[in-house]
C-alpha cells in the first residue's frame, strides 16, 4: 500500500517556492486554511525512512509521521532546491541522514519557540 508524507507550508515556505511549478502542486487542507505538499512514496523509499528514524510511524491515513523536525526541514529545503516531489528528493535527504540524526538528538532537549 502506498505511503505518504506531508510537508506543511507556512508563509515563509510559500515565499521560497513562489513562481515555480510547485505552486500548482499545493494541496489545500482543512478548507484551504492549510497548505501542504503530499509526497507519495514507493514502498522502498518508505521503508528506508522508517529504518533510518526509529521514532517514525505510519498513521491511520498511511502518512509517515513523527520523523525528526530536522528531517522535515531538510526535506523542504531539498524540495525548494530541486523543485521536485519525487523519490529523488527523498534520496537527497537520506544522503544527509547522519547530520539529521545529529540534529535530531538535540531536538529531544530543545526546540526554539516560534515567534508569534
Amino acid at each position, binding site marked *: 500500500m502506498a505511503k505518504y508524507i*506531508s510537508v*506543511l507550508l*507556512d508563509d515563509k515556505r510559500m515565499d521560497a517556492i513562489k513562481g515555480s511549478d510547485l505552486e500548482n502542486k499545493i494541496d489545500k*487542507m*482543512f*478548507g484551504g*486554511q*492549510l497548505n501542504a505538499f503530499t509526497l507519495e512514496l514507493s514502498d522502498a523509499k518508505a521503508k528506508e525512512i522508517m529504518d533510518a528514524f526509529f521514532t517514525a*510511524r505510519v*498513521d*491511520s*491515513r498511511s*502518512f509517515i*509521521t*513523527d*520523523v525528526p*523536525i530536522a528531517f*522535515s*526541514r531538510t526535506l523542504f529545503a531539498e524540495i525548494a532546491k530541486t523543485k521536485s516531489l519525487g523519490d529523488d528528493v527523498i534520496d537527497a535527504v537520506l544522503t544527509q541522514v547522519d547530520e539529521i540524526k545529529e540534529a535530531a538528538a538535540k531536538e*529531544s*532537549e*530543545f*526546540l*526554539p*519557540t*516560534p515567534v*508569534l
Partner: protein
Amino acid sequence: MAMIETPPPHGGRLVERVVTDPEMGKKLAKKCDAVYDIKPALSDGVPIRNVYREIMSICYGFFSPVEGSMTKAEVDRILKERRLLNEWVFPYPLVFDITEEELKDLGVTAGDKLLLRLKGKPFATLDIEEIWRIDNPEELAHKTFGTPEDNPEVVQEAFNAKMPGWVIYKSLNPVVLAGKYTIINEPKLTPPFDRFWYPPRKSREEYARRGWRTVINHQTRNVPHIGHEFLMKDAAYTGDIEPCHGIQVNAIIGVKRAGDYPDEAIIEGHEAVNLGGYIKPERHLVTFTLWDMRYGNPLEAMLHGIIRQNMGCTHHMFGRDHAAVGEYYDMFATQTLYSKGIPSYGFPVSINDVPYGLKIRPQNMREFWYCPVCNEIAYSECCGHTKEKQKFSGSFVRGMVAEGIFPPKVIFRPEVYKVIVKWWDKFGYPFCNAKYVKEKEVRLEVDLPDMDV
C-alpha cells in the same frame, strides 16, 4: 417526565480525610511511631508513579469510597470481581508499597501510625492495619489489567513493558502497608493548578451554585484542538429535557510520558477555550484530578466514571480507545463496559446496571473530523464524505506544532495555541521531554506549609 438529578457519591458518601486545622494536624503528627519520606517510583530511572497523588485523590474524595492503602483481602477481591470489600465496584488495587529494607528501618507493625513527609514536610498519616507482601508483582500486573485468555471480550494482546500501567504494578515494592490515609498538613496547589482545584465537595457546591442540574464530563490529557472542542459541545446536547447545563473538563494530571503536552499547557489550553468564548465560561469549568494514568481503557473508564460521579457529574463522554495506549484492548472496550458489560471483569451487564455500580450516564461518542464538503467540523456518524474527510490526527497536529507552524483556526483556536507557546517558552520545549518528566516529579503540583513537629 423524570428529570435527571445530581447522582450520590460512589459508595453513598464523600470520603474527606483532610485535617484543615494545623494545630490538630500537628497533634496527629506527633502521635506517629515512624516517619517516611515519599518519593517517586522509578523504572529504569524514569518516574512512573508518585503515591502522593493517590493519597490526595483518596483523602479529597475523588476515589470515594476508598479510604486508604488496600488490605490483601481487598486487593484480591478487586482482582477477582472488581469490587471493594464493601461491595462497591472499583477497578484498581491502590497500595502503599515499600521495600523490605525500608520496613526494617521503620520498625513498624500493624497498629502503628506512620507519618508521611512530602518535599521534606509533614503531609499525611497512614494508620497501619495490616502489613502484607506482594509475592509476584508481574502476576499482580497481569491480573490487574487482564490477559487475552482470561478476558477475551476486550483484551487482544498480553500486556508488557510498553504499557505504563502494567509497568507501575510490575514495579511495586514487595511490602504493602495497608490502612487509612489522613492528610494532616493541607497542601497548597501551585500555579497554574491552584485555580483549577475542585475536589468533589467543592465541585458539587459550585454546580449547585451555578444551577447546573446536569453536567457532562470531558476526560482529557491533551491540549484541546477543534475536534475536542466540537466533541465537548456536541456531546453536551445530551441531557434530559434540555442539553446538559454544564461541561466539566477534568484533566488527569500526573506522571507524563515523553511526547505528551505539559500539564500546565493542557489545563490552561482548556481554559483558553472558555476565555476565548468558544464555550462560554458560564457553561464550562476546567478541573483536574491527580493520578498517574494506568491506561487501562475499560478499567480506567470505570475509574473515570467514579471520579466524575463523585464530582457531581450526571454524564460522561467516552470515545474509542478511551485512555488506551497501543492495541492491547479492543478499541470499543470502554463502550462495551458501559453498554452490555464485561463478564470476565465481573460485570455480566452494564456497569450502570450491576448492584453497587455507577450512576453516571455514559455518552459514547465516535469521531469528529473536518469535512470540506459539509464545510464544517462533522460527526463521523453524520458526514457521508468519508473520502474527503480530514482527520485531526494527534501525531499530525504534534508534528505541525513541533515545526513551529502557526496552526490554522480550523485546527487550534489561536488562544489555545498561544498557551502552548507560552509553556514552550518556559520549558524550552513544546512537549514533555526527559528533563520535564524528571523535574515535574521534584516540583510536583503542591507545596506544603511549614509544620514544626
